[in-house]
Every structure is written in C-alpha cells, then in structure tokens.
C-alpha cells in the first residue's frame, strides 16, 4: 500500500485537530483572567462569624464585614471604621466617631446604632466581649456617626479587645442582624467590607464567590497587617473546596487555581521544585499544638500525673510527626507562645530534649496511678493530631500507662470533649488541639490560658493564677504586662494547666503570579494582585 502526500497531510490534519479539540474547548471555558483569583480554601459552613468560631467563618467575616479597629503588622490596634476616637480623663468613657463613606452592601449607610448592636451581640459570646459587657455601664449611640462606651471602671485593654482577631472578632453587622440572639445565626451575608458575597454563585460545600465592593471607601493609609487601606486589586475571588490534596496541588500546577491555603507537608518538595509555585508563610506565628488533660478526673486531677506528662513529652519527636519539615517547626516552652511580646522563659527548667520518661514513670507512681484507663481523643480526620495521638499512646504504654485511643472523626471528638465525666461514662483523659501562636499573647481571650475551671476542654483550675490573669485587663503598659506574664507562667508550670507540644508554622502555596498577600494569621483578600 502506498500513502500519497495528500493522504499524509489529510491524516495529519485530522489527528492534529482531534488532539487540539480539548485544548480549544478548554480555552473557551477558562479565559485568562488576571482579575479573578481562585483560592483553594475550606468552605465556610457557618456564615455568621459571631456564631461560627472556626477560622474559615472568621476569614469569611473579614472579607465581607468591616471592623471598628484592626491589628497592624505589629499586632497593634489601629482605627479602621472609626475615624476619630477619644477617652475621658477618668478613662471611663470612650467616644467613637465613624469615618465617612461607610455603607452596607445593600445600599444603606453604616450607623452608630449598627455598631452598638454589634458590640452587644459580640459581648454575649466572645470572652473579650463578655469582659467588656461586665465592665460596661452603658453602650449607646449619640448620633448617626457617634457612639460611646461608658465603663464602671477603667479597662486598659478596651481598644485591644475591639481590634482582636481571636475568635469571634468584632465584625460590625447591620442593626437588624445584630439584634438577633447570638445563637440565632445571621444568614444574610451583607456587610460593609471590601468584598460582597455573591449569593447567586454560592454552591454550599463546593465554591463561594466574593466580588469587589466597588462602593467601598478604603482608609487613606497604606495597608499594614489587617489595618490601613483595604485596597482591592482584583474583581473577583472564588473559594474552591478541593477535598483531595493531590488534586489541589495538580490544579495549582496546572494554573487552574492560584492559592492553596493548607498544602500538606508531603507536597512541600513538589511545590518548591516547580518554578511557577512558591510556599509562603502568611502567619509567622503559626499554630501552637497543645495537650489538654482532664483536670476533673483521674489520673490528671493529680498534679503529679500532670507533671509526669510534662516530663514525658519530647517536643521534637511530636513535631516530627505533626510538622515533618523542620523549616516550619519549633519547640515552645512559654505559655505565651514564641512570637508574642510576652513570651518568656520563667519556670521552664522542665524542658529537656528527648523528654524524661523515667522521671515521668516515677511521677505517675507518686501520683498513685493504679492502671486506670487513660483515654486519648483521636480525630482520624485531622492527620497531624491523629499521628500525635498515636505517638502519645505509644509513649504512655512504654512507661506502663494504660492508654487507649478513642478514634472518631472531628465531630465525634468535639462531642466527647464536652463530656466532663469519667472515661467509663464516655469522658476522656487527654486531647490534643491547637490554637494560633499570636492568640497566646492575650490571656483575656486565649482559651488555653483560662484556668477558671469553667473554660476550655480540660477545665484547669488555679485561683492564684486566675487572680493574676484578672489583672491583665487593667494593666496598661507593655513592661507591666511582661512582668505579669512571667508571674503567670511561673505558676502555670507548677500546676501544669496544659502541655505544649510545639509550634507548627504552616505555609500557604501560591502561583508566583499571585503577589502582595497580607502576612497575618487571617487570610485577607485585599491588597493581593495577580499578574
């Protein structure tokens, strides 16, 4: 059989057309759009950032709502919605005036009444807000743009509280939304922030779209942390939920998405070897991993048993399983974290590389430990904690502790975590969790630093420590707070309120065409640019 030149060309063209059809079709569906950013993010399930205390709800809140004050890159509060503010000579009355140009996404102006209602609702649930409400004599509007907070006694941290990014932050909502009970979720995502939530394109659980709020009037200052001018340089941001990490990385490599909020450490080398991709640490403090013990039940109702745990833990071993890349993992001995101004070395003589299992064994013996079951809550869908829980169980068994893993998904862990009873009645002994390092700089709102006996899981209780913590809100200077922090830590490591397992700093992954990301613990979408 002979093939003519004409046949050859005909076949070649047919093959070429067949091969290029998918690319042509694809080009029609995904036009190059430098004004649209696609971010792989966990999808918010609760759209009311006052009710939803997870970080995703807070990121959603940051996009569509605005705040009275915001933290700059040095974590200092700066006015955001507030134009002018002042405090009376007796430090009991604060007056706030809103800046010009603030408006809701549905067209109405932001008023002082909106702010008052929002503060009151936030005050029902946020620890900082509850403190404010305890101290407040009155919170009221003076005119459409002015409101005051009158206090029974001075509150040195008031402005810090209003600016906090610890959950839930004080997002300003419309009065009609904010007058709902705190547990009654606000479902209308209408804020006054730099982005508008695109309800029509919302696909719950799959993707959410945020459009630039063209009416937003940013402050005149340069962007600095979460403070300053919120200049939006893209038209649209889409949050896409990609459940599988490998698919998410492939989408990033193929340019289908621009940003991946939590790449798994397994893929760091893949990302680093791709010339189009970069890892970037936005939250320099990262997460402090924490081991909480149930103070109410045996064996950890005994301080000796808690001390045993402190000596058993080899932070470097735990970091190897939770944050395998040493570039992003650090030991931490201060209850105030590594990156806050209050981080210190008071009473940290217990820290020993490799831990001290023999000492731990002896201390368990001194605690009268008699083989009681020690139940470790093990969330199988949180890989880092799942691995750490298994390591902990193995370490405990090595020194003769009857450790048992209670494995379930995160939902199951949360439910069991609320049970204060003994393990025989569905309670627990140990759970591992994490919180932002920067949060540890504020004992008023940091759940780990509460030793009232009524706080976060584990319910540590120490009156002496709590008396010092209560003073925190009234101390005004940095130096005074640093001194107070040392005293608090000194007591903490005596009664062992909890145990730190290390600090994991988690980078995000992005395409190099996406630049100017804000380096803060929350994911803010203004300022970023796409080439």
């Amino acid at each position, binding site marked *: 059989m002979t093939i003519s030149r004409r046949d050859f060309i005909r076949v070649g063209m047919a093959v070429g057309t067949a091969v290029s059809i998918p690319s042509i079709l694809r080009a029609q569906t995904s036009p190059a759009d430098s004004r649209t950013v696609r971010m792989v993010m966990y999808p918010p399930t609760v759209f009311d950032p006052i009710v939803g205390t997870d970080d995703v709800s807070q990121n959603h809140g940051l996009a569509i709502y605005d705040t009275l004050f915001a933290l700059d890159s040095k974590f200092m509060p700066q006015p955001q919605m507030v134009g002018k503010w002042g405090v009376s000579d007796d430090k009991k009355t604060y007056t706030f005036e809103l800046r010009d140009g603030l408006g809701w996404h549905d067209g109405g102006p932001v008023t002082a009444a909106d702010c008052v209602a929002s503060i009151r609702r936030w005050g029902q649930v946020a620890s900082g807000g509850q403190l404010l409400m305890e101290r407040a004599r009155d919170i009221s509007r003076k005119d459409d743009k002015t409101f005051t907070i009158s206090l029974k006694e001075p509150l040195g941290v008031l402005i810090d509280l209003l600016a906090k990014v610890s959950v839930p932050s004080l997002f300003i909502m419309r009065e009609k939304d904010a007058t709902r009970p705190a547990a009654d979720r606000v479902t209308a995502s209408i804020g006054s922030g730099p982005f508008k939530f695109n309800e029509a394109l919302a696909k719950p659980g799959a993707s959410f779209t945020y459009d630039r709020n063209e009416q937003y009037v940013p402050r005149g200052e340069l962007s600095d942390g979460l403070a300053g001018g919120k200049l939006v340089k893209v038209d649209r941001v889409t949050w896409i939920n990609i459940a599988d990490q490998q698919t998410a990385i492939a989408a990033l490599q193929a340019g289908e998405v621009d940003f991946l909020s939590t790449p798994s450490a397994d893929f760091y080398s893949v990302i680093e070897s791709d010339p189009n991709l970069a890892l970037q640490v936005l939250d320099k403090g990262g997460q402090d991993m924490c081991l909480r013990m149930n103070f109410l039940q045996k064996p950890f109702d005994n301080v000796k048993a808690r001390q045993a745990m402190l000596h058993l833990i080899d932070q470097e071993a735990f970091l190897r399983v939770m944050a395998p890349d040493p570039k992003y993992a650090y030991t931490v001995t201060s209850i105030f974290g590594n990156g806050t101004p209050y981080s210190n070395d008071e009473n940290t003589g217990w820290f020993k590389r490799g831990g001290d299992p023999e000492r731990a064994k002896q201390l368990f013996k001194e605690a009268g430990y008699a083989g009681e079951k020690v139940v470790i809550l093990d969330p199988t869908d949180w890989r880092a904690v799942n691995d750490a829980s298994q390591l902990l169980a193995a370490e405990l068994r090595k020194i003769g502790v009857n450790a048992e893993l209670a494995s379930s998904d995160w*939902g*199951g862990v949360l439910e069991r975590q609320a049970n204060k009873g003994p393990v025989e009645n569905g309670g627990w002994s140990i759970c591992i969790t994490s919180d932002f390092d920067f949060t540890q700089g504020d004992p008023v709102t940091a759940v780990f630093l509460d030793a009232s006996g009524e706080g976060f899981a584990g319910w540590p209780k120490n009156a002496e420590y709590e008396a010092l913590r209560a003073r925190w809100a009234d101390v005004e200077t940095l130096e005074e707070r640093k001194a107070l922090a040392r005293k608090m830590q000194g007591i903490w490591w005596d009664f062992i309120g909890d145990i730190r397992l290390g600090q994991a700093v988690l980078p995000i992954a992005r395409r190099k065409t996406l630049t100017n990301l804000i380096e803060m613990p929350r994911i803010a979408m203004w300022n970023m640019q796409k080439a």
Partner: protein
Amino acid sequence: MAIYILRRMISTIAVMAMVGIFVFLLLRLAPGDPATIIAGTKGTPEMIAAIREQLGLDQPLPVQFVRWALSVLGGDFGVSMFFGRPVLELISQRLEATISLSILTMAVSVTIGVSFGILAAWRAGGLVDRILTAFATLGFSVPVFVVGFFLIYFFAIRTRWLPVQGYEPIEHGIGPWLVHLILPTVTLGIPYIAFIARVARASLLEVLLEDYMRTALAKGASSYSMLFHHALKNAGVPILTVIGISFAYLIGGVVITETVFNIPGVGRLVVDAINNRDYPIIQGVLILTSGLYVLINLAVDLSYTLVDPRIRY
C-alpha cells in the same frame, strides 16, 4: 403489567420509608453533634445549648422524628443545619453533576463493555480474547484513584489537554461540560467496562454453545446473523441485569471519582454532610437514592420483556 408496576411503585415508597427510619435512628445514635460542630472548637456550653434548641435537637427523639416525617410526607426534606438552605435545593444543585457523570459513564461503559464482551466471546481463546480478558482483570483490580491521578498527570499536568478538576454545567455549553467530564468518565468507566465485558462474554459464550446455535450454523447462518440476531438477544437478560445494577451502584458510588476530580456532586455533598452531622442532608440524599435505586431495578425488570418474550408481568 400496570398492576405489577403499581405494586412495585408502592414497594418503592415502603423501601424509602424504611431507609428513612433507619437513617434517622442511625444518625441520632452515632457520636457527633451538629450544634457542637457549628459552635466550633471555641464554642461555649451555653452557645451549644442555644444552637441545639434553635435546631430542635433538644426535643425528645420521637418528637424530632414525627416532625421530620410529617415534613417529608409534605415534600419538604428540611433545611440544612449549616447552610440554612432547603435540602432539595442543595441536592438539585449537585444532582446535575452526578447524573451527568453517571449517564456518560454508563453510556461509555455499556458501549465499550458489550463490544469487548462480544469480541472476546466470538474469538474465545484467541489473542483478542486474552488481551480483553487481561484488560478486564486489570480494569477491575486497579483502584479508581490510581487511574484518576495517572490520567490527571498525563492529560492535565503534562499535556494540559484537559482540566484537572471541576465541573461546568451543561448550560455553559456542551464543549466545557464534556471537557470536564472526559477524565472522570474514563476513570469511573474502566471498572464498569471490565465488569460488563466479563458478563457479556460469559453470557454470550454460554449461548453460543447452545444446540440451536449449532443448528443455525448448520443452516448456513452468517456469523453476523448468529451473533447479533440469535446469540446477543438470548444473552441479553444477564447483561441487562448487570447494566442495571451497575447504574444503580454508580449513582451511589461516584464519591471517590467526584473527590479525585473535585466534581461538586451528590456524593461529595453527602460525605461533607456526614462529617458535619448535617442530618437533613444525609437523610434527604439517602431516601432519594434508595428510591432511585428501586426505580432503576424496576426499569431493568421491565426491560427484560423486550429481550425475552417469555417474561410477562
């Protein structure tokens, strides 16, 4: 036949009711509380209690069940505890992707699977049969996610011919819709092609050894006539059965493919709902899926009459 269909439809309702009761109880007995999840890790006991009250989870189980059953009977599957949207709206948002993937996969699987089966049976014991049998064994054995990532690597990352992930609704155009479904369809289709090919081959081989086939050959019937007029029709019942089972199984089993290719389908919806303990979504999806399963089985049963005149209802 009308009475038969009516009887089967009634049984469908009974099956859906039983699934509903079972799923309702199972969810309430399983650990995990939606209120705790909504309140998040920093949620206070007071907040959790208030959310439970708001969602009606503080009511006794029988009260919750009666409320839910009455609303379902009225065609209302409730509202998602997290998203605050009607369950039927959420399901309908996701249904198109799942149905598209399932129908396309089934169409490809049946076409290729039956063809492979015929070819392998016709050339039984030969090279073609061995190759197709090897393919069927391999297709059946290799996990879906392995095939999926393999295809993504070559056709999306290396060549950039096809997208890695996502789904485009058909209203955006046939081209984008199809392009996003090619890799998922191939991935999901391979085991079904293998399964259908194996059954078609075995069924045809059995028929080809029948006396009447030898008679047809002796009478000088052509290969084409023997295969397509005599053998395939008689081998049709088992093939139709596996196609029906496969399709029903496919509807409920696309979740891995949906995850690998990030297709926002019903499978992903229900997995996320299980993680969040979003009871109304889980209940709604499972009830509707069970109904669909029964209806597909009914359709398969009815289709038997088309290939086997001896079957009457």
